[in-house]
């Protein structure tokens, strides 16, 4: 059991700065997910915590002890890799017991711990097999089992599910969540998959270009993204971004589509925008509703593509003055057809406003 503390940690590979000035505390027993696009530095950060990558500058503490100069084997961590990284010539049982064997643990004790971990993961019948005789999902279980057997202070997961197919990934995601419930150990989980991040995390840390963009609980980040990057990264389907111009008059503040000049949203009082400023309006697909043609502030558009998902439909709508199609998510089994003209209505309370630099101004 231990917390993990990073103070102004940075990593450069030659001239390339992979991680810049990251400060972060992972509390004891917390499950924190590092998420971000590829190349954002999330894996490098995890590997520095593991001791597989030297820390260029800054300080790393695990359980309150400085770890910068401590060998990976002595940090009290266990890691699950994307490629599973099982030892190919060893059986499953030998793989799981290897770390303990290296520590000089007695054979009977190793066997007991391996059997216990195998029980948790329901892989008892695989113990005598070699990794090459296992399926991807089974290999991943063994890799997790190998981590459990060590009883580490901190579990590190480096994109552990990205090599699995979609169905298995969803299943293993639930199992990792249950494992965290059961073990109550500090876990740090790296992924580029925002669904994994949203479903697993106590706290999400969103990284971009080696920096932390925002951290917080999944819902916090979803509902109050600090900037355009976070807003665009979290959420499936992705948030729509509409370039608008703010207009202030006695009637209130409104936003109009920059190109067409059509007013699309009336803002509440106290939103700090100046007349004529460029505002990027962020609207999640599931907050857009469809209205009659006479509704106030309705935006007319034409459906270009319809994706029927069963319980809901995704409409890709061409709106006058916008380069990109707007994505609209409609619950229920309503019938929409390609080419159909519809009117969209944005919800002031669930809209996000970003300034020219991409920072959040507020919600409508």
């Amino acid at each position: 059991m231990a917390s993990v503390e990073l103070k102004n940690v940075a990593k450069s590979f030659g001239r390339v700065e992979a991680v810049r000035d990251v400060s972060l505390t992972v509390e004891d027993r917390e499950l924190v997910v590092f998420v971000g696009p590829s190349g954002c530095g999330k894996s490098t950060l995890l590997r520095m915590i593991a001791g597989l990558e030297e820390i260029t500058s800054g300080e790393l503490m695990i359980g309150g002890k400085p770890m910068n100069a401590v060998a990976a084997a002595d940090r009290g961590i266990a890691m699950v890799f994307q490629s599973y990284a099982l030892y190919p010539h060893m059986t499953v049982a030998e793989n799981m017991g290897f770390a303990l064997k290296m520590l000089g643990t007695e054979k009977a004790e190793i066997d007991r711990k391996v059997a216990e971990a195998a029980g948790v993961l329901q892989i008892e019948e695989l113990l005598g097999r070699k990794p090459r005789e296992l399926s991807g999902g089974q290999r991943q279980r063994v890799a997790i089992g190998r981590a459990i057997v060590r009883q580490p202070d901190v579990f590190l997961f480096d994109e552990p599910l990205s090599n699995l197919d979609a169905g298995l990934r969803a299943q293993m995601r639930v199992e990792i969540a249950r494992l965290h419930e059961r073990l109550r150990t500090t876990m740090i989980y790296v992924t580029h998959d925002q669904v994994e991040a949203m479903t697993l995390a106590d706290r999400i840390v969103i990284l971009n270009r080696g920096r932390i963009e925002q951290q917080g609980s999944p819902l916090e980040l979803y509902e109050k993204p600090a900037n355009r990057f976070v807003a665009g990264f979290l959420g499936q389907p992705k948030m729509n971004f509409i370039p608008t111009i703010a207009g202030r008059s006695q009637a209130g503040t409104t936003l109009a589509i920059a190109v067409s000049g059509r007013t699309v949203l009336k803002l509440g009082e106290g939103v700090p925008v100046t007349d004529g400023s460029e505002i990027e309006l962020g609207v999640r697909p599931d907050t857009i509703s469809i209205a009659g043609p006479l509704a106030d502030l309705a935006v007319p558009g034409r459906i270009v593509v319809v994706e029927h998902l069963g319980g809901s439909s995704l409409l890709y709508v061409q709106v006058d003055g916008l380069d990109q199609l707007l994505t609209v998510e409609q619950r229920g089994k309503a019938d929409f057809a390609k080419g159909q003209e519809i009117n969209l209505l944005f919800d002031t309370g669930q809209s996000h406003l970003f300034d020219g630099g991409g920072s959040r101004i507020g919600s409508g």
Partner: protein
Amino acid sequence: MWTIKRFPALWLLPALLPVALMTLYPVAYAFWTSLHSVMLLFPGEPFVGLDNYKRVVSSNYFHDALRNSLVFTLLAAPLVVIIGTLIALFLQRRFFGSQVVRSIVLLPWVLPGAISAVLWIWVFHPSFGVLNGVLRDLHLIDSSIPWLTSPRLALVSVVIAHVWTQIPFAVVLLMAALSGINSETLEAAAIDCRSALKRFRYIVFPEIKAMIVVLIVYNALTAFTSYDLVYAMTGGGPGTATTLLSFQIWRESFSMYDFGSGSAVAFIVVAISAVLIVAITRALPSDLFGE
């Protein structure tokens, strides 16, 4: 139907015929020769049974050559593989100039045996040799060591030269084997075990074991049948101190023109080589040779 399952031997003929022509026929002819008295100066090739074998085996020359060849092989083959492994492990690391060092290590490979021999004669030369010079400068010796002219040192010297020529090939194959190991597996090992030595023993070695066995077999054969480098360095001397079995094949065949006896020695070499291969693959079982 002309399916492959129906006439397996027939389908294999295009591949087997050249093998038969280029390998089996000469070997069979050599075996036939070893059982006959085939001398250039005497016409007729009468069957003599094992007489050729008896004669070569009973000569002192054979005893010296066999002993030297065995010592040469038992020293050279393991040394090549052990040093090759150490160098390969070292070169796997990335460091400043590692690419240059990698290229330099391969250099001995491109030199013909005779040129390597000239190089090493100069290294071991009693008066102008680099080795004696260095040892003298370090005040480790007072007088020059006669590397190539004292019987025991001469054998050690030719082993060193031979090992030097064979290392690059071993390094290349071992680096290929090492680079085949999943880097995440090595990282997992680094997290599981602090000792680099133990990680090599339990994780790396099993992964490159098949390659090591191949290299030991290959180097045992190369050393046991070695000829050019040693001949160019010492001519088999002083006396018979560095005389190898391959020399006797040459001597019987092309010096005495007794091809029957030459072939007999050649077949003894083949037989001992076969025993060596079996012994090595038995001692180091790996997936490669059907464990």
